[in-house]
């Protein structure tokens, strides 16, 4: 089972789980979900499931430990004299912080070891060679279990939320196991918070027709996005990115745009399948995308793209760093020095830098991901710096910042910046990414595009027309969604002949225009590799 798009998942595991779920009584349903989750994990990663089991046991135990510390502390507080309370409080906090530190070391440490030891050790060796010392560090390679980058973040967020008192520690090991291992979120997220899904999963609500339709629709929509567009663009992208020095700069630019489209279609399509699958069981996973290409700024883009990762970094890195005591002191000093507008930029930039280094590294252990992170850091930092200036200038020139033309300009600029970032993201190593960008700048000519040479590189005329039409359709859908139209619900509320006609049309569209079979190489789910 390579992905949610494989026949094993769509034709065997998912229907079997839905069927069993529908006919079992309430108390057994959660067991079905857990068994299906572990079956899925097993089918993808085999015995590596021990990592997931270990993480589950570990956060269960550490959560209880945190709670115990708090309870003991409270008892001591109740008995203590008022002048001792402060010391006791500090003691509890120290102890709890110790537990959190331990949890972070275990979980993030495991992730780092499995995912990054190769990168760090081989770079260490390169450094040693550079210093004319023998490269002696052993470079191991581990097999990565599916979804470890995603469920590790869920595990850590659970413990920190317990520590912060946002949620109670869960005594029920099985509820935690289901929260951590629920199969629709396992491959590419979304990264869920305990309070978002754990209780709902445990309740295992009865199947209902409405959820069944909503979920099924969404799965179909996700498959269409992935198979019609992402897979169709794959060969062209493979060709250009693997042999970029054969291509004119304009072709490379087109490939960067195509890759951005592909990544969005693949990732958001997979998320649609994940959210749809969960919806079948009446469980609402958090949304991961909110029409990111409508964003006016890069900062807004990251509030709309891979939302659950962005909010995770915000809640567990950005705010803790920027609101820690030393940083707050720095902020007030900077405000006095640089004024209330520029002062906070300095401190928030430190936090922002942490976030973007982590973001880059989270995607993979390679320099181009780190570059990708720093690139977005630089863009957001620059955006923050010039924002007051832009406000003044537009004010002086009487430019209406809410005018459609101004907003379109902003959106277009954001899309271009994103595409440039994705070029480095996709490039096979940072060096190649830089060379590709260099080619775009130095070796640019419109003639390959105008002459239609493009069509010789793995995508033909009809493909291009199809993709373009689909994007226009997506644009219309996006505008409707921005205006608050809930298309899924609207469709479900229609009479059954209309619904069935739409479903038949969508399935036939997929069957005819899907990029599968002879002559196509489907793209592996991109984010499952992270």
């Amino acid at each position, binding site marked *: 089972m390579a992905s949610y798009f494989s026949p094993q998942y769509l034709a065997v595991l998912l229907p079997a789980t839905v069927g069993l779920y529908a006919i079992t009584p309430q108390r057994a349903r959660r067991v079905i979900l857990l068994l299906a989750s572990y079956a899925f994990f097993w089918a993808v990663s085999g015995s590596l499931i021990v990592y997931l089991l270990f993480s589950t046991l570990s956060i269960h135990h550490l959560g209880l430990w945190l709670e115990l510390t708090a309870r003991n502390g409270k008892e001591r507080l109740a008995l203590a004299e008022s002048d001792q309370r402060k010391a006791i409080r500090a003691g509890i906090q120290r102890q709890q912080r110790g537990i959190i530190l331990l949890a972070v070391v275990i979980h993030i440490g495991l992730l780092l070891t499995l995912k990054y030891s190769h990168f760090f050790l081989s770079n260490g060796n390169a450094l040693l060679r550079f210093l004319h010392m023998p490269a002696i560090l052993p470079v191991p390679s581990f097999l990565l279990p599916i979804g470890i980058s995603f469920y590790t973040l869920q595990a850590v967020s659970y413990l920190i939320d317990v520590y912060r008192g946002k949620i109670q520690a869960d005594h029920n090991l099985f509820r935690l196991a289901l929260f951590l291992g629920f199969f629709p979120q396992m491959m590419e997220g979304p990264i869920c918070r305990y309070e978002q899904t754990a209780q709902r999963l445990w309740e295992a609500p009865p199947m209902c027709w409405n959820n069944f339709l909503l979920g099924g629709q969404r799965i179909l929509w996700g498959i269409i996005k992935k198979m019609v567009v992402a897979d169709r663009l794959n060969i062209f992208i493979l060709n250009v990115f693997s042999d970029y020095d054969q291509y004119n700069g304009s072709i490379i630019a087109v490939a960067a745009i195509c890759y951005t489209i592909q990544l969005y279609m693949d990732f958001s399509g997979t998320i649609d399948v994940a959210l749809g699958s969960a919806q079948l069981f009446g469980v609402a996973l958090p949304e991961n995308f909110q029409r990111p290409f409508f964003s006016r700024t890069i*900062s807004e883009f990251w509030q709309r793209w891979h939302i659950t990762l962005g909010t995770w970094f915000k809640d567990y890195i950005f705010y803790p760093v920027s609101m820690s005591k030393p940083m*707050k002191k720095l902020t007030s000093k900077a405000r006095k020095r640089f004024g*209330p507008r520029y002062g906070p930029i300095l401190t*928030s930039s430190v*936090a922002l830098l942490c976030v973007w280094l982590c973001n880059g590294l989270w995607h993979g252990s390679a320099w181009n991901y780190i570059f990708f992170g720093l690139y977005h850091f630089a863009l957001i930092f620059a955006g923050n710096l010039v924002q007051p200036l832009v*406000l003044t200038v537009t004010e002086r020139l009487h430019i209406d910042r809410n005018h459609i033309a101004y907003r379109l300009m902003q959106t277009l600029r954001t899309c271009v910046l994103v595409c440039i970032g994705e070029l480095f993201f996709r490039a096979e190593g940072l060096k190649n990414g830089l060379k590709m960008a260099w080619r775009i700048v130095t070796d640019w000519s419109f003639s390959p595009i105008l002459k239609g040479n493009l069509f010789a590189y793995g995508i033909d005329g009809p493909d291009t027309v199809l993709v373009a039409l689909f994007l226009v359709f997506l644009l219309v859908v996006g505008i409707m969604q921005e205006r608050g139209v809930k298309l899924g619900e609207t469709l479900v509320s229609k009479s059954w002949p209309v619904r069935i006609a739409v479903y038949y049309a969508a399935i036939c569209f997929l069957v005819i225009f899907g990029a599968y079979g002879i002559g196509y190489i489907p793209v592996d789910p991109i984010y499952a590799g992270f």
Partner: protein
Amino acid sequence: MEQLLEILEEIRPDLDFANCQDLIDGHHLNSLDIISIVAELEDAFDITVPTVEVIPHNFNSAQNLWAMIQRLQEEG
């Protein structure tokens, strides 16, 4: 409340804080604005805003912010 609105408008003069109800959900405020707001509020109202309070709900409108400030002042 007056004082709060003044502070907010100084940070983002382009926004209508008195009426906007989706400052976070509507992508009007970014994280830098939030850091600035927290810093200003801590100074002006002599409170400490813990990280747990930095959630969309508290920052979606001036009213919610005001409620948070009052709560934190009481807890003092």
